[in-house]
């Protein structure tokens, strides 16, 4: 039995009105906190773009505010529903513990599986897989660079191995041995390296390694050989441990566990201990992840520096190359080819040294690598062709652009001639020459400013290319190599183009919107809400976008681009950004989308967003299910709305939403004093919006059929079914079940535009998925044309509009009223994709022609 029926049982009227008010207060608090949580998440997500300066203290406060608000939402829901959802408290507690673990960065290794496939690795996992493997996984996933298959044995596995061999006991003994004359580093090496080498790999880790090996095994007669590489866990990216740890090449699958132990043992090599002691790093807590990457039988290999580390001012790339494996290049011995290349298209080779090369390294099919003579006909030739070098330069600069700093990249050319990336890491540059930053800004004075100080920075950085105003439907291959994506709308198909763009400029949108989020994901510098970019850049000039100072220059501002490459630490790599990204993974994604789905349950809440979504849905549902409008409710703060369109709408007034007191619990639309609701109903009631279409376009009649099903309450008891609006003078929370789909509007409209917002959610439908998707997409496009920022996932749409003036907001509410009616039947009609564009035009035309009050 619903709370409403209990509250309004005969003889309890006075008491129940108070109880009801208390519940409404709870609901109102729940909705407020729900909005607060969404705002906090939006701000934190926006912070990832780098334009908001935040520190660790902010992260702590963010976590504390969220925790408090979400916890109260859980309490409010349970108060409203008489403790029906206590399990939501468990879900909250689980998520809270996860967030706090990330925030506190406990010294232990992150709780990951012992082995992670390279495909699941990115830089947010650097504490689990080490910086080196994290970067490799990142470029494989995000840049579609060719990177060999492989997996990483994580820091968690390392910790488990160390526990197994009781490393801590030995550590203590080694550190404390007072009368020992041998230097500490030597003692550590002698004792601990041996301990690791002679220890046993726990069975579960060995099994996980075997399983991973079998998954990357290629078969086909070729023996599977691996490179087993160290990937030490270091918080600071400049802690590169270059050359201090072991790398085993050409390891047969059966020998991988032993090689794993050798690499782990190298953590305690004397030079590594000295290095860490000097840097005041606690070597006693050091952990090591280890990458197992399939060996590439290489025709040639080498290293590319995207800048000259000794002279970063020069605009060049340095490439070294040798036939066969890259050992000679990496170790620096033997004769190899060297090329100096231009960093600008068409990436010319500026100079080359091609010595005679007698010796090369090859993979030994039996395992390991061996030296062999270079075939006579290759000795005096360059190890790679100029065409290959151009391609290498292009990929290397792409990686540099993505990483936002100069890179040191190991590469190979496989037997088919394809470029394969083996490793990338930040290239340490000679200390910056003072004044280099100023040169960048001085240089900008020579360039014409096309746009300045307009809109908002969504992702900081600098990008150059030809401006391309996209119309929709473009494919990445249609666009020039270096391009800046310029768009009027933040339309969903842009997601496909963003990873290829050097920068993004949008006329509309917010830094919290969908497009902005994608640009941050791919670290593409972006400006949004620029308003006039498509007009100013319509001719497609070459431009340089400085999304730090918020300026767009005509032409290529070389100094700005170099300034970016020479900078040593991109903000995305700082500890605070990593922690925030990891926190947001446990906070922001929405997994519970469909309230009708079986998984819509507290135990499936994985993030705070899931928790508040669940609570919001259930709290509103609770009010909807049992809304009684019997005689007992006389004099209370609500009324059913009488209007031409039989919407069966009930308004609960929480302060100034209705002209008080409504007679007989009914009111006319004119008696509604809630600004946003009134405007919405004006849209819904507008006459003749669809006169262009025959028969079904009679708004009243089709809405009539629309709202009558399904009944939400028991008709025998005389309780009218319908829809619920919670309203104050400026605020509206409306939940509309129309047929089988669901609209939800949460809006605040007042004189101060900074407080104004509309949030619109739309989900569900009667027909098969394809038609529903078309309809949802159509709604998304319409709303984008009306300045909304949309987030579309399957047939669940969230659209937001913020900070427009009162009249514009009310006009959008009227538009939403029309749209709700218009789209009610659309999924039945949406037989093909072409109907999307037709529907958009038809609606906007109708909206344009409709006489709405203003």
């Amino acid at each position: 039995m619903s709370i409403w029926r209990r509250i309004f049982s005969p003889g309890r009227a006075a008491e129940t009105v108070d109880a009801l008010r208390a519940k409404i207060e709870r609901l109102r608090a729940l909705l407020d906190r729900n909005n607060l949580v969404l705002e906090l998440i939006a701000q934190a997500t926006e912070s990832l773009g780098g334009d908001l300066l935040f520190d660790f203290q902010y992260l702590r406060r963010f976590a504390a505010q969220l925790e408090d608000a979400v916890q109260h939402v859980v309490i409010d829901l349970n108060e409203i529903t008489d403790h029906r959802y206590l399990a939501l408290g468990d879900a909250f507690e689980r998520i809270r513990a996860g967030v706090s673990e990330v925030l506190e960065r406990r010294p232990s290794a992150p709780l990951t599986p012992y082995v992670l496939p390279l495909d699941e690795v990115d830089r947010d996992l650097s504490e689990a897989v080490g910086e080196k493997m994290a970067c490799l996984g990142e470029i494989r996933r995000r840049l579609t660079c060719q990177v060999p298959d492989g997996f990483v044995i994580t820091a968690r596995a390392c910790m488990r191995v160390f526990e197994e061999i009781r490393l801590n006991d030995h550590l203590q003994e080694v550190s404390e041995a007072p009368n020992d004359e041998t230097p500490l580093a030597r003692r550590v090496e002698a004792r601990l390296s041996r301990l690791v080498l002679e220890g046993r790999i726990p069975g579960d880790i060995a099994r996980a390694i075997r399983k991973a090996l079998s998954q990357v095994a290629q078969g086909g007669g070729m023996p599977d050989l691996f490179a087993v590489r160290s990937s030490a866990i270091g918080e600071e990216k400049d802690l590169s441990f270059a050359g201090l740890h072991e790398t085993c090449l050409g390891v047969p699958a059966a020998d991988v566990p032993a090689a794993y132990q050798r690499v782990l043992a190298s953590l305690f090599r004397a030079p590594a201990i000295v290095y860490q002691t000097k840097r005041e790093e606690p070597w006693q807590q050091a952990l090591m992840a280890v990458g197992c990457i399939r060996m590439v039988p290489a025709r040639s290999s080498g290293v590319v520096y995207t800048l000259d580390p000794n002279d970063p001012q020069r605009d060049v790339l340095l490439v070294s190359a040798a036939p066969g494996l890259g050992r000679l290049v990496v170790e620096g011995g033997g004769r190899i080819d060297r090329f100096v290349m231009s960093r600008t298209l068409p990436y010319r080779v500026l100079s080359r040294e091609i010595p005679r090369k007698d010796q090369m390294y090859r993979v030994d099919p039996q395992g390991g690598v061996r030296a062999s003579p270079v075939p006579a006909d290759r000795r005096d030739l360059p190890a790679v062709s100029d065409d290959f070098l151009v391609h290498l330069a292009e990929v290397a600069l792409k990686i540099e652009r993505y990483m936002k700093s100069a890179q040191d990249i190991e590469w190979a050319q496989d037997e088919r001639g394809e470029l394969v990336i083996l490793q990338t890491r930040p290239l340490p540059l000679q200390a910056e020459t003072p004044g280099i930053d100023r040169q960048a800004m001085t240089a900008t004075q020579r360039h014409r400013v096309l746009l300045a100080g307009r809109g908002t920075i969504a992702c900081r950085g600098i990008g150059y290319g030809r401006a391309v105003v996209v119309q929709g439907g473009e494919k990445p291959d249609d666009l020039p190599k270096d391009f800046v994506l310029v768009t009027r709308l933040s339309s969903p198909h842009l997601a496909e183009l963003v990873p290829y763009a050097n920068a993004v400029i949008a006329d509309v949108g917010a830094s919290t919107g969908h497009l902005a989020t994608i640009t941050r994901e791919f670290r593409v510098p972006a400006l949004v809400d620029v308003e006039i970019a498509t007009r100013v850049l319509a001719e497609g000039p070459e431009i340089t976008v400085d999304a730090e100072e918020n300026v767009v220059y005509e032409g290529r501002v070389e100094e700005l681009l170099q300034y970016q490459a020479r900078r040593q630490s991109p903000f995305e790599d700082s500890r605070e950004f990593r922690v925030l990204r990891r926190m947001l993974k446990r906070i922001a994604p929405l997994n519970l989308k469909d309230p009708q789905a079986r998984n819509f349950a507290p135990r499936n809440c994985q993030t705070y967003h899931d928790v508040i979504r669940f609570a919001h849905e259930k709290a509103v549902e609770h009010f909807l299910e049992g809304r009684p409008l019997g005689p007992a409710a006389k004099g209370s703060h609500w009324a059913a709305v009488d209007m031409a369109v039989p919407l069966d709408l009930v308004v609960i007034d929480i302060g100034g939403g209705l002209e008080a007191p409504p007679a007989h619990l009914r009111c006319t639309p004119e008696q509604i004093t809630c600004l946003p609701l009134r405007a919405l109903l004006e849209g819904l009631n507008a006459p003749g919006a669809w006169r262009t279409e025959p028969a079904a376009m009679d708004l009243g009649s089709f809405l009539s059929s629309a709202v009558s099903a399904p009944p939400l309450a028991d008709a025998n008891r005389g309780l009218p079914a319908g829809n619920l609006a919670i309203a104050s003078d400026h605020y509206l929370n409306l939940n509309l079940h129309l047929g089988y789909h669901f609209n939800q509007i949460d809006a605040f409209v007042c004189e101060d535009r900074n407080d104004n917002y509309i949030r619109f959610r739309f989900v569900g439908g009667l027909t098969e998925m394809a038609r529903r998707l078309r309809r949802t997409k159509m709604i998304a496009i319409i709303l984008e044309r009306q300045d909304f920022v949309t987030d579309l996932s399957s047939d669940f749409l969230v659209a937001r509009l913020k900070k427009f003036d009162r009249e514009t907001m009310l006009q959008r509410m009227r538009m939403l009223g029309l749209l709700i009616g218009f789209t009610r039947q659309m999924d039945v009609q949406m037989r093909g994709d072409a109907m999307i564009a037709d529907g958009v035009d038809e609606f906007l035309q109708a909206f344009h022609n409709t006489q709405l009050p203003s």
Partner: protein
Amino acid sequence: MLRPIELCIVDDERIVCERLRSVFEKNGLLVETFTDSQAAKERLAQKRFDILITDLKMAHPDGIELLSFVRQQAPEIRVVIITGYATVETARQAMQRGAVDFIAKPFRLGQLRDLVLKIAQEIQEIPEQSSDAPPGT
């Protein structure tokens, strides 16, 4: 040519120092940063800066103490307070002691940049008075 503006940044969180350094160097200022407020105080005693940006909540000395110190040492220095603990009371206190502005974290980098560049411009418009320079500059 205008003399470059000397900026001192003090915040116990390294990320704040690093990011602000990059913003202001790009805009042509000479920047020194300190995560240790005591070291900053010693440096401020030696060298004349034009602008000081300081966090409020730090281990001894905190931002207010630092502000009082530079007001005695070099009254012409312009001080901007940045803090995560923005309360009306602390803001009032800082402004009373001579801070020119007060910004709460998190803030947009452009907001602080515009503020500091405006101050820098004002400083450059004042004719230099060499007799004011403290020893050590």
